[in-house]
């Protein structure tokens, strides 16, 4: 009889869970407790289980991603100076914002924002949430707008797929989520803030380490290339721009430095092989004269 009762309780709650979230479960548990089908202790257990603490990167909220992204951006900006070139920054920002609208994630908590870093190092970096940085060294290696567009689309791809958040160690998230629990508070006690800040700092270390030092997993780079072709293709850019850039990078003099882009990305040849089928499938696009003209104007004077 006891087994039957437990079975009924579990089945009922399973149905409730299917249809709804935890507040209904809580009320469901209360109902069952009231009928005497389950004990108060059992009701509590069920309630706790239904509030399963977050455990994966996918459960980081948009707002938390924004705060992580802000600090990642601050760390990037502590390594490189910003290029003081308003016209070029405006050009990159407008192009990046336009491409983002064709992505699978056109809206993020605080939107997409772009800056050019004043360094000859070849690199492009995306902080979680959509703060994107291109280096002067990279822009100088682009011969046309469509090539630049594919690079911006690649970075937007990293943001869309949350590759930055995916590089956070799982144990880190488990610690943070355990600490946060499901308490309905917005202001934390000093000791909780201290612990959370420690985890936050380690989280930033995981992301910046991947972005700047170790590079993402190769599959993330191929995935971002795939999305770059998809998003830029939707915007009617010539997706062959990706191949043109990668070909430029084969045997580039900066490769010897082993810094930046070369350190953190798969070989250009491998990326070309991976991306070519999708680029070929889309077919070539004639680059409008206006694009060529505005690109030349924007990069004129880059030293």
């Amino acid at each position, binding site marked *: 009889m006891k087994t039957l009762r437990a079975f009924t309780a579990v089945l*009922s709650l399973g149905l409730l869970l299917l249809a709804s979230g935890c507040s209904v479960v809580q009320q469901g548990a209360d109902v069952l407790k009231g009928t005497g089908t389950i004990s108060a202790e059992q009701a509590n257990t069920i309630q706790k289980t239904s509030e399963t603490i977050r455990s994966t990167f996918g459960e980081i909220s948009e707002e938390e991603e924004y705060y992580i992204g802000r600090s990642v951006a601050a760390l990037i900006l502590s390594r490189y100076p910003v290029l003081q070139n308003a016209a070029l920054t405006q050009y990159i920002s407008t192009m990046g914002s336009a491409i983002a609208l064709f992505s699978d994630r056109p809206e993020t908590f605080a939107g997409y924002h772009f800056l050019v870093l004043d360094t000859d190092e070849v690199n492009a970096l995306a902080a979680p949430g959509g703060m994107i940085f291109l280096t002067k060294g990279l822009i100088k290696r682009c011969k046309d707008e469509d090539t630049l567009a594919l690079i911006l689309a690649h970075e937007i791809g990293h943001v869309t797929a949350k590759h930055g958040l995916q590089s956070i160690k799982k144990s880190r998230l488990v610690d943070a989520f355990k600490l946060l629990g499901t308490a309905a508070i917005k202001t934390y006690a000093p000791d909780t803030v201290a612990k959370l800040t420690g985890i936050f700092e380690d989280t930033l270390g995981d992301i910046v380490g991947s972005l700047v030092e170790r590079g993402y997993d190769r599959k993330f780079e191929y995935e971002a290339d795939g999305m770059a072709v998809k998003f830029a293709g939707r915007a009617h850019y010539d997706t062959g721009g990706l191949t043109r850039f990668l070909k430029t990078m084969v045997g580039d003099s900066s490769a010897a430095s082993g810094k930046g882009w070369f350190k953190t990305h798969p070989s250009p040849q491998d990326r070309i092989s991976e991306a070519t089928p999708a680029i070929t499938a889309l077919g070539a696009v004639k680059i409008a004269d*206006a694009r060529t003209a505005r690109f030349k104007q924007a990069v004129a004077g880059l030293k």
Partner: protein
Amino acid sequence: MKIPKRTFVLFGALLIVLLAMAADTVVVVKIQTTSIRQNPQFFAPALVTLKAGDKLTKISESNGWIQVKTQTGLVGWIHSSAVEVTKLNLLASNGPMKTQAKASEVALAGKGFNKQVEDSYKSKHAELNFALVDRMLQVKVASNLIEAFLRQGRLGDFGGGR
């Protein structure tokens, strides 16, 4: 004839399931600010500006856009990446638009890695220039400029190359 207690409970549970299935779908804005547009396009006229936590009722969906109704009855379109889809909680007693949420954006608003944590991190890292981050975030390209950029470059809806 006495109805067994477990049958009674099961029946109740099934009733709740059916009610939940019949409920309206509510979408909640999960980003700082966005707009409801007249048509499912970013360059369509904005009808109203919304902020994080604002709740809307879903009417239909098309190509990544959700047709919604505001609490004041305004109907328009919002991009799916700006909202979290949830179900209306019929059992909630305080107000018709109360939504239930587990580890959802709504339930997590202001929690976890929040401003308090950033401030604490900042205080330990005076070398980091958050003012520069704030400036970067303040620069937002207006949608009419994006549209003009696409038009000039024969891109997007103005593209005819492929």
